[in-house]
């Protein structure tokens, strides 16, 4: 007998995770932390999907989560390449150093 977790609670957790992630993105300058925070945000969205899928009893939520997982894997692959480049070119992992695209 599974314990029924109210969907609102799950969504609250997801929102909290999302905010934590966003806060991490905004305040951390280290690019690795930035990426991790992004992962957190993405997973919060995935959690929200799962909760919604469970609530309506539809498989769509879980499918979306699979998609997000794949997306996150691809994103990390690309992002780590970029991180490597940045660390080589700027000799730091500070994301603000890479601000050459200013107007």
């Amino acid at each position, binding site marked *: 007998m599974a314990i029924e977790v109210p969907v609102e609670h799950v969504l609250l957790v997801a929102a909290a995770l999302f905010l934590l992630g*966003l806060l991490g*993105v*905004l*305040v951390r*300058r280290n690019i690795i932390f*930035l990426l991790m925070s992004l992962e957190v945000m993405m997973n919060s969205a995935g959690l929200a999907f799962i909760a919604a899928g469970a609530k309506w009893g539809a498989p769509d939520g879980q499918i979306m989560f699979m998609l997000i997982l794949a997306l996150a894997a691809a994103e990390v692959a690309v992002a780590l390449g970029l991180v490597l480049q940045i660390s080589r070119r700027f000799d730091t992992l500070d*994301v*603000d150093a*890479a*601000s*050459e*695209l*200013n*107007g």
Partner: protein
Amino acid sequence: MLDWFWLVPALPLAGFFALFVTEGKLPDRIVAAIGAGSIGLAALVALGAGMEFTQSGEASYSQTLWTWMAVGNFTPSITLYLDPLSLVMTGVITGVGFLIHLFATGYMWKDHQEPEGYSRFFAYMNLFVFAMLMLVLGDNLLVLFLGWEGVGLCSYLLIGFYHRDAENGYAARKAFVVTRVGDTLMAIGLFLLFRELATLDIQTALGDAAQLDPGMATAIGLLLLGGAVGKSAQVPLQTWLPDAMAGPTPVSALIHAATMVTAGVYLIARMKGIYDLAPVAQFAVAIVGLVTLLIASFTALTQTDIKRILAYSTMSQIGYMFMALGVGAWSAGIFHLMTHAFFKALLFLASGSVILALHHEQDIFKMGGLWRKLPVPFWSMAIGSGALVALPFITSGFFSKDAILLTAWDHENAGRWFWAGGVLAAFMTALYTTRMMVVAFFGETRTEPHDASRINMWGPLVVLAALSIGGGWMTFSVLDDLLGAISHIPHTHPAALVTVALPLAGILLGWLVFSGRLRVGALVESPFGDAVRRFWQSGWAFDWVYDRVFVRPFLWVARVNKRDVVDLLFRITAAVTRGFHHIGALTQTGRLRWYAANMAIGLIVVVLIVASV
């Protein structure tokens, strides 16, 4: 011969063309042959044609070459029109023109200022003669205008002939621009005439002139007078002529004494039919003449450059011609034009000989004592001066000037004033001419002359001297039918006696003063005397005023507006656009986290908006 009349303008044009395309590569002797020969041939053709024309007894002869342009009812044609007036002018232009060209072949020979310019000089001179002939022979005001602008152009080119000296260039441009002001008025006159009469054909226009509204006739007359005033160096557009003396002396003789500057007189005489309908305009002609001849004769008294003296004297003699036309002495005016062409060309050429012998010294106070050393130029100058001051009964100038002054006496409208002014100026003419002769040719020698002139230089002097004397003895009656006979007042009339006597008094006074027999130093050197002298010497301050009123403001505007104030409109537009660009670019920090924050805030705003709706 008359059928070949088109050769008269065509020959000088051909001469110009030949000299133009050979780019000065011809030997100087061939250049001289082409330059003077083309004018000589033209003079011969003109002579033959003129004789045939006078014998034919016709009032006029015209030869249409081609239609210049045909636009609607505006169909000016290139037509040569020969009548007694244009015949006299053609004779003067080709005849005197040839003598001056001949003189120039010697004067410009191995010219040290412009050794390569021999061919260029004769090319310009031939072009000038062509243009001048088109001016007097054109049967259409547009063809006349072609000649009118053409002579102005050649005048510009020849004044600035020694173009390495920037001052000559300035004088040339001044001459062109000032006369162009007159040309503009004349062009407007042509527009008006065409609007009123739908033709620019001179004979047709004069025939239809009776249809003109009197006000329109006056307006046209005044506008044409504006053109004449510019070209003939009359007040208020006279300032260019003294500076025009920067050109070589034959140029001054041909263009600025004998022919071009009398074009205004010709124009007004040619358009007599208009002025007959516009007494106001005709009166204005007389006033312009009177004012000019007075101003110029006083100015001439204070000049020291021999060519400037002659220039002011030319101005004042043309003033006589204008006054003659204005008071109705039409034939006498043209008569004076002819005699003036003889004696003023003579004076200029003789002074040219002197200048050349003195290595381009033009200041009369650096001459002196030349009468023994340069006999031909001296006697030429003496004869020319005699004609200029109108020595009674022997010189040509006397007959023509006398006719003008005595007709003025009889003029019903302020005639006595015109007469008085004319006689006063005649007195002044005698005074300044005597001054020039006494200072330059008598007294001690200040510069040693080296006369190297040959027959091609003194030959023309002799011929012109003969014409200056004999040119007045013949009865000048060819223009009687066209412009009316010259009036003859018996020389027993008191006015006539005064007219004759005053110049003699002037000569006497001049001789007494300038040979030092009569001391006037105190008067001249007094502050008042000096101020007057400086005022006269500056040409009555016309240049000063024009400089302040027209030249400087124009230069000022040109200087401050070099960057074009209108462009400011577009530059400001561009600057504003660029300003917005900078504001927008501020958001592009390149910082990833800043973008992320923006996105987050944007998202929140959107959510809030959606939620609140």
